């Protein structure tokens, strides 16, 4: 394999591992802030114990999120130096702003929050966790705006063959990025919700700390319901954004080949091996794809056959991951409605309590699938229609990347297993 492919594999390994921890940080920080606000408002010690219990799990998760994040910043330089040099003027500044505005805030106030229970007043302590929640979600904003520049470059002019910033405001209001941000943050908050729901269910089934876990369950069920719905809405919007700015991605998501108007959506589809059309195509919903993409049954949707072969993303992985994500994304609002409806008498529904902990991985999986659609669907471009991925890797030996992939995989597997073991152990231990 060449350096480009190896670097792509390494980036995929490191970014997916990082993104096991990030969504929970984004969502659980907000839930913690809500719980602690309830403690400050009511003065009820039960809420304090609640915050401390979920806080411990939060910290275990948070640490790995932090350190695996540095990996990503380093890799732009180590593995994608051609890319870094090309887009540094815009992409680099967003990363630098992320570090200086969000990471400092997050890391400082998480320390005061965790170690400072007896050092600051209740109100200041509560403010600390709100700042952590704000900072983590703000960091998501900056990094997604950086990613959006790769998806839909805006706010630049070409100078000596390189994009140079000429409209910063356009870069940070990139419509592609706003949609991505809404979708990512909603789905991450959903992860926070299911995490609390699943673990609360485990304890409710065993009649541990009924008051604390019933209350946690209630808060999380409302949270999960709201954000499972906003995720679906933002996801639909994001599909339309893709149709507008990245027609090749949309066509790959749907395995849609022939440009046309009033394009149907086929319930049964499978791309053929030659990448020229579909091997299976049955059960059409008339006009559905045109409506989904442009809210208009007569709208024209570009098919892959009208996109030069060398500019098409890999169809099969984009298509499959997209279908699976949509399937999960449709299930979550239904689950959310059911849990919300049952929240007051949830302790009586032992089957639901048994199943819920097993559902915790589902939103994580949906998020991973979503990022696969986003990133694989952008290929062969690293910056859409501007720079090919094949031109972006560092001029280094493939053997260097081979050993680093091996090292990353070993270290991450080791840490990932330990992290799951510890989260499980401390989740099951309950608030003692």
């Amino acid at each position, binding site marked *: 394999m060449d350096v480009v492919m190896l670097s792509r594999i390494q980036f995929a390994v490191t970014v997916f591992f990082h993104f096991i921890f990030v969504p929970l940080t984004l969502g659980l920080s907000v839930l913690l802030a809500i719980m602690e606000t309830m403690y400050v408002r009511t003065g009820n010690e039960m809420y304090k114990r609640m915050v401390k219990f979920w806080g411990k799990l939060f*910290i*275990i998760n948070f*640490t*790995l999120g*932090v*350190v*695996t994040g*540095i*990996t990503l*910043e*380093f890799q*732009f*330089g*180590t*593995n994608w*130096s051609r890319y*870094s*040099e090309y*887009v*540094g*003027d*815009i*992409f*680099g*500044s967003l*990363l*630098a*702003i*992320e*570090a*200086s*505005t969000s*990471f*400092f*805030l997050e*890391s*400082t*106030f*998480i*320390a*005061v929050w*965790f*170690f400072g229970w007896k*050092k*600051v007043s209740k109100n200041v302590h509560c403010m600390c966790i709100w700042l952590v929640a704000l900072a983590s979600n703000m960091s998501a904003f900056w990094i997604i705006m950086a990613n959006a520049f790769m998806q839909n470059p805006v706010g630049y002019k070409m*100078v000596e063959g390189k994009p*140079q*910033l000429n409209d*910063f405001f356009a870069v940070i209001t990139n419509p592609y990025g706003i949609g991505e941000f809404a979708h990512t943050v909603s789905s991450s908050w959903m992860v926070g919700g299911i995490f609390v729901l699943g673990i609360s269910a485990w304890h409710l089934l065993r009649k541990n700390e009924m008051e604390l876990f019933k209350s946690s369950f209630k808060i999380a069920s409302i949270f999960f319901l709201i954000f499972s719905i906003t995720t679906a809405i933002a996801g639909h919007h994001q599909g339309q954004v893709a149709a507008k700015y990245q027609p090749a991605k949309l066509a790959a998501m749907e395995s849609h080949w022939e440009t046309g108007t009033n394009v149907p959506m086929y319930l049964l589809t499978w791309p053929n091996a030659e990448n020229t059309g579909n091997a299976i195509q049955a059960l059409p919903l008339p006009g559905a794809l045109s409506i989904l993409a442009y809210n208009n049954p007569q709208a024209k949707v570009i098919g892959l056959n009208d996109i030069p072969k060398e500019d098409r993303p890999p169809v099969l992985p984009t298509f499959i991951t997209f279908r699976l994500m949509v399937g999960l994304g449709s299930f979550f609002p239904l689950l959310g409605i059911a849990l919300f409806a049952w929240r007051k008498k949830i302790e009586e529904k032992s089957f639901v309590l048994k199943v819920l902990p097993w559902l915790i991985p589902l939103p994580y999986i949906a998020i991973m699938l979503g990022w696969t659609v986003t990133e694989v669907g952008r290929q062969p471009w690293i910056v859409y229609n501007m720079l090919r991925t094949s031109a972006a890797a*560092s*001029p*280094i030996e493939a053997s*260097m990347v081979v050993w*680093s992939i091996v*090292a990353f995989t070993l*270290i991450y597997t080791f*840490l990932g297993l*330990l992290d799951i073991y*510890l989260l499980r152990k*401390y989740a099951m231990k309950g608030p003692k």
Partner: protein
Amino acid sequence: MTLELIWFLLWGVLWGVYFVLDGFDLGLGTLFPFFAKNEREKRVLYNTVAPFWDGNEVWLIAAGGITFAAFPKAYAIMFSALYAPLLIILFALIMRAASFEFRNKVDSDGWRKMWDIFQFLGNFVPALLFGVAFANIFQGIPFDANGVYHGSIIQLLNVYGIIGGLFFVINFAMHGAMWLSMKSEGHIHDRAINYAKKLWVFTVALAIAFLAATAIYTDLFVNYQKSGMLLVIPAIGVTALLMVRIFLAGGRNHLAWISNAISIFFIIMFGIVGMFPKLLPSNLDPAASVTIFNGASSTLTLQIMLGVVVVIIPLVLLYQLWAVRLLMHVVDDEVLDSDESY
């Protein structure tokens, strides 16, 4: 030109602040196996830095991010040329963070022993390799006009690189010992001061070796010959290092730590200013060197980033200072027995 110059200095300042701050926890972790004799002492060491390592490490992310934003070409070549040492540093930092978080979570001696080893390696390795990397940057690294690196990791371990690495390790260890003295009491406190005093001798010896080797292996002194005024920078670094011993002798441990912080900062700035206008010299083809003229981002990017940094960084320093003061208490039995201890 002025904008690029400001960014060049800010770039140096961020790396300097990073080494001042992460320097003490890298150093204390390096001392770990030599200093901590029993479980209680080990836990004291962990807990003196537990609330701070994360905030300190963000300065590395910021320094890296600023390099990327302000000087993308330097970032691209530096990080790809130094691929192996940077990734080793990264693996070490990952294991260091995990050792804080995981060590106290399972009650088993073998488990704790494993994390103690990672704690040591996770601090010693970055301290050494950062020293090696910066020394090599000061003397130039072999890359051509296309930014392709023509060296190997073995070549980085040259005489000057190794002196730089050892200087970082020993100086940070002293920095860490002094931090420990401020955060501990009784026997540990006294021993920490003894360690600092002994390490001071080695630090001074290595500082002299480093400055001498700099004159031999690099052309950093050229700028200082051109403008003698600049010699104030290394002079402050050296004076502050000498003052460390005086403050230690007088029992003024906080001032000793601050003095060493000043020393680290000015020694980094000494190297940075010496390289001007180069950010990344090439010793293969001097014309390929990345300078602030051929390596900086556009004026608009530099202006916007300057606006951000001028507002944010002082604010960061203020709230970090607030947090440090808040959590600066001595690690005693009460701290060790609390829910939040490591």
